[in-house]
C-alpha cells in the first residue's frame, strides 16, 4: 500500500491541467476545441460569465422580468380599463393621454397591450408545461424501453408531423371549439413531436452509456435507471427546449387569434388586436396594429434570446 500512495502523488493534477492539454489521445475533435470548454467551476459563476460576456442574454433576462411583471400585476396598474370604450376618443394617434393611441372604439391601446400580457404569457406557459410533461415522458420512455412503446410514440409523432403544424392547430381548434383552453391544447399537441423526439434521442443515446450500464451492475432496476440516471441528465436539454419553444408557442397562439380562432373580442390579446388594427393600416392608423404587434415581437424575441442563453448556461460546448 505504501508504493500505491507514492504513485498517487505522482499522478498529474486533475481537471484544470487537463483542460489545458492541447490534444487528447483518441481525439475525436480538433485539438483546440478543448481550449474552449474549461471545466465549469460552478453553475453560478458560469451564469455570471454568460451574462457578462454576452450582454444580449442579460438584456433578455431583463425583458423577461418585465414581461413577468406585466403578466402578474399588469391589469391592475394600467391607466385605463382595457375594455372601456369611449367613442369620443376613437382612433386617436399616440399622445400624452394615450401613449399608444386609441382604437376604433376609443379603447386605450397601452392599457390593452399591457393587460393582454397575462393571457398570452399564460397560454405559452401552460401549453409548454403540458407538452413538456407529456412529450418528455413519452420520449424518454420510447428511447429507454424501445420496442412497442417506441413504435407507438414514433407513430403518434409522425402523424402529427405529417401536418404543417399551424394548419393542424387550426384544424384542432376549429373542431374542438373556439376557446383558450383549446388553443393551449392545440399548441401543446403540435409541439409534441419536437419534445418527444429530443427526449427520445437523448434517452436512447444514454441507454447504452457506460454509466447506465454501471448502474445496472449496481443492481438498479430499469425504472430506477430511468429516474436516477437518465432523467436528470436530459433535464437540462429539455429545459433548453422549453425556453426555445416558448416564443413559438406565443406566436402560434397569436396567429390563431389573428385569424379569429380561440380568443374572442373584446378580450385584449395581442394577435386579435393586430387583426383589429389590420384594416386601419391602409388608411394610415398604424398604431392600432403596431403596438400589440411590437409587444408580441418583443416577447418572442426575449424568449428566443433566453433560450439561447439557457442553452449556453446548460451546455457550454454547444455555444457558437
Amino acid at each position, binding site marked *: 500500500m505504501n508504493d*500505491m500512495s507514492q504513485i498517487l502523488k505522482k499522478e498529474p493534477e*486533475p481537471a484544470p491541467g487537463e483542460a*489545458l*492539454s492541447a490534444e487528447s489521445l483518441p481525439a475525436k475533435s480538433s485539438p483546440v476545441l478543448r481550449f474552449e470548454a*474549461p471545466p465549469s467551476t460552478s453553475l453560478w459563476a458560469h451564469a455570471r460569465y454568460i451574462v457578462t460576456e454576452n450582454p444580449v442574454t442579460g438584456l433578455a433576462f431583463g425583458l423577461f422580468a418585465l414581461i413577468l411583471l406585466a403578466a402578474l400585476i399588469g391589469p391592475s396598474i394600467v391607466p385605463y380599463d382595457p375594455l372601456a370604450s369611449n367613442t369620443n376618443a376613437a382612433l386617436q394617434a399616440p399622445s400624452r393621454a394615450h401613449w399608444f393611441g386609441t382604437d376604433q372604439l376609443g379603447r386605450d391601446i397601452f392599457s390593452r397591450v399591457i393587460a393582454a400580457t397575462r393571457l398570452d404569457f399564460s397560454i405559452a406557459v401552460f401549453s409548454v408545461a403540458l407538452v413538456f410533461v407529456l412529450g418528455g415522458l413519452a420520449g424518454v420512455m420510447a428511447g429507454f424501453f424501445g420496442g412497442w412503446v417506441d413504435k407507438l410514440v414514433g407513430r403518434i409523432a409522425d402523424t402529427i408531423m405529417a401536418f404543417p403544424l399551424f394548419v393542424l392547430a387550426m384544424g384542432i381548434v376549429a373542431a374542438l371549439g373556439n376557446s383558450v383552453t383549446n388553443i393551449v391544447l392545440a399548441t401543446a399537441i403540435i409541439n409534441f413531436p419536437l419534445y418527444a423526439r429530443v427526449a427520445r434521442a437523448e434517452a436512447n443515446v444514454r441507454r447504452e452509456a457506460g*454509466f447506465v450500464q454501471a448502474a445496472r*451492475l449496481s*443492481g438498479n432496476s430499469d425504472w430506477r435507471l430511468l429516474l436516477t440516471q437518465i432523467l436528470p441528465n436530459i433535464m437540462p436539454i429539455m429545459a433548453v427546449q422549453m425556453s426555445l419553444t416558448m416564443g413559438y408557442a406565443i406566436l402560434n397562439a397569436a396567429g390563431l387569434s389573428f385569424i379569429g380562432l380561440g380568443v374572442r373580442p373584446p378580450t385584449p390579446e395581442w394577435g386579435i388586436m393586430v387583426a383589429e388594427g389590420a384594416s386601419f393600416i391602409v388608411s394610415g392608423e398604424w398604431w392600432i396594429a403596431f403596438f400589440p404587434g411590437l409587444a408580441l415581437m418583443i416577447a418572442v424575441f426575449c424568449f428566443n434570446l433566453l433560450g439561447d442563453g439557457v442553452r449556453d448556461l446548460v451546455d457550454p460546448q454547444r455555444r457558437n
Partner: protein
Amino acid sequence: MTSPPLLDIKNLTVEFATRRGAVQAVKSIDIQVAKGETVAIVGESGSGKSVTSYAVVRILDRAGRVAEGAISFSGIDLVTADEAQMRDLRGREISMIFQNPRAALNPIRKVGRQIEDVLLQHVQATRATAREKAIEALTKVKIARPEERYDAYPFELSGGMCQRVVIALALACQPQLLIADEPTTGLDVTTQKAVMDLIVELTRERGMSTILITHDLGLAAAYCDRVVVMEKGKVVETAAAADIFRNPQHPYTRKLMQATPRIGMSLADLLPDAPKGPPAEAKAPQVTPAGAEPLMRVENLVKAYPRPSAGSFLAKFTGKVEPEKAAFRAVDGISFTLARGETLGLVGESGCGKSTTSMMITRLIDPSGGRIVFDGADIGAIPAKSFAVSPMRRRIQMVFQDPTDSLNPRFTAERAIADPILRMGGISGRDALRARCEELARLVGLPVELIDRFPHQLSGGQKARVGIARAIALDPDLVILDEPTAALDVSVQAVVLNLLEELKGRLGMSYLFVSHDLNVVRLLCDRVIVMKTGAIVEEGTAEAVLGNPQAAYTRELLTAIPHPPM
C-alpha cells in the same frame, strides 16, 4: 547530417487564445528533420505534439497562432510564407495523414475523385490523365482492385482500407515530407502493422522524410530513426531510436519508457522507483489447484444477431425471395473455465466477440445459447432484465473501458461509489456509508478529499479509480475488466494496472481481463484465451500462449506488435 535539414523548427512557440488568456501549447521547441530521415515525436496527451505539426503546415485553428520562432522547409520560411505559397506546398511538398482515417475523407465524394482533386490542384495531372493517375496512386498503396475502389465512397471501405486511401492521397504528388499524426490509433494491431509497414516502405522508396506523431514509444522506436520526446509543450529529449530505450536521459523519457509494457517486464517494473522483484512469485499461490471446482464455467456460449433483412422491398413485390441468411454469430459456441483467484485474459481484435462475451458474463445481455455456470448456478438462465435483483448480481461486477463515459456526470464520486451499496449493500446510515466510501477510496488510492467532486473535476486516472472503487464496493468474486486502461496515457495505465493487481490479491477476486493489448495481457494474466471471429483459436497459460504460440493467428498478432530495438 552535413547538408542543411529539410525541415528546421527553431524556437517555436504556439499560443492559443482562450477565455483565460493566451495558453502556450508549444514552448520554444527545436526539431530538425533531415532529408530521408524518419523522426518520431512522442508524447502523452497535452504534450503539444499534434499542435507542432499543425503549425508546420499552418492549419492551426483560428484561436491558435505561432507566437515566436521560425519554421524553415527547404529554405522557405513557413511562418511568414503567404497563403498561396503555403497552399502550393501543402499536399505537394508536405503531406499529412491523420488518425481516424474514415473521418479524414469526404464522406460523400468518391475516393478516386478526392485523389484527383489533389492531383489537379497541384497540376500533377490533367483532366484526361487524372483518373488513370488516381488509380495508379491507389495501386501503389496496395489496394486490391483499384479500378473498382476508385468509385467507392469511404463508408464502403474498412478502416485500414480508408487509411490506405488517405496515404495514397498524401503521397499522390510525391511530397518530400510526410507528417503522420497518430496514423494507426484506433486500428487493430495487425492493421497497424500493415499500415506502418506500407508507410515506411513507400517513404523509403522515394527518399522521403517522415514525421511520425504518436503516443506509443514502442511504435516510434520500431519504425523511426530518431525520436523526439515532448512533455507539456517542451522537447525534453531527442535521441536515436536505438538509444532511447537503452539509455534514456531525461527523467520523463525514463518514466514513459518504463511505463510502456514490454516483454520480460513485471507489472511493478512499469512504475518509477518501485522495488523490483520477481513478478511470478506473488501470483502463483493464489490460483486454485487444477481439479478444484472453478469459479465459473462457460459452456458452448453463443450470441447470435439476426441479420438485417437483405431482401429489397422491390424483390418482395416481384416475388423473388432471397434465401434466409443465417444469423450473425458474434460469439460462436465458446467454452472455458475461470479458476478462483485467477486472471484470465480474453484477447482479440475488434469484432472478435470478446466484448460480447464479457457483456454476457456480466449479464447485461442475454446469450442465445449455452451455459454460464457461476459458482455452481447457471446464471445464463436468469434473464438480463431481472438479473439486477438477483443475489448473484453483487458477485459479478465490471470496470468499464472509458472512465469518463462510465460515470454519471451528475453524481459525485462518492455517490457513484455508493450506488451499488445503496442498492444491494445493506449498509444503513449516512455515516456508515460515508465511512465505507472513504475506505474504498483509500483502497483504490483516490484521495479522500476528492470524493465530493464531480467527474468533470477529476483526471482520467482518478475517474478510473472511482470506477474501480465502485466495482469492488460489494466485494465481488469476479470482476470483468473491459479494456480498463485503453483510454488512459501509458503512465496512468501503469499505475492502474498495478492497482488492479494489488486489489485482486487483497480482496481475493478473480479477473476476466478483456484487452487487445498483448503486452498488457502478458503482465496481468495467468491464462489467456485468444479469440477470432467469435471462436477461441488458442488457450493456455500466458507464458505458453504468448511465448510459444501454436495458432497461426496468435503468431500473427504477436509479430504485429511493434518491437523496439532492445
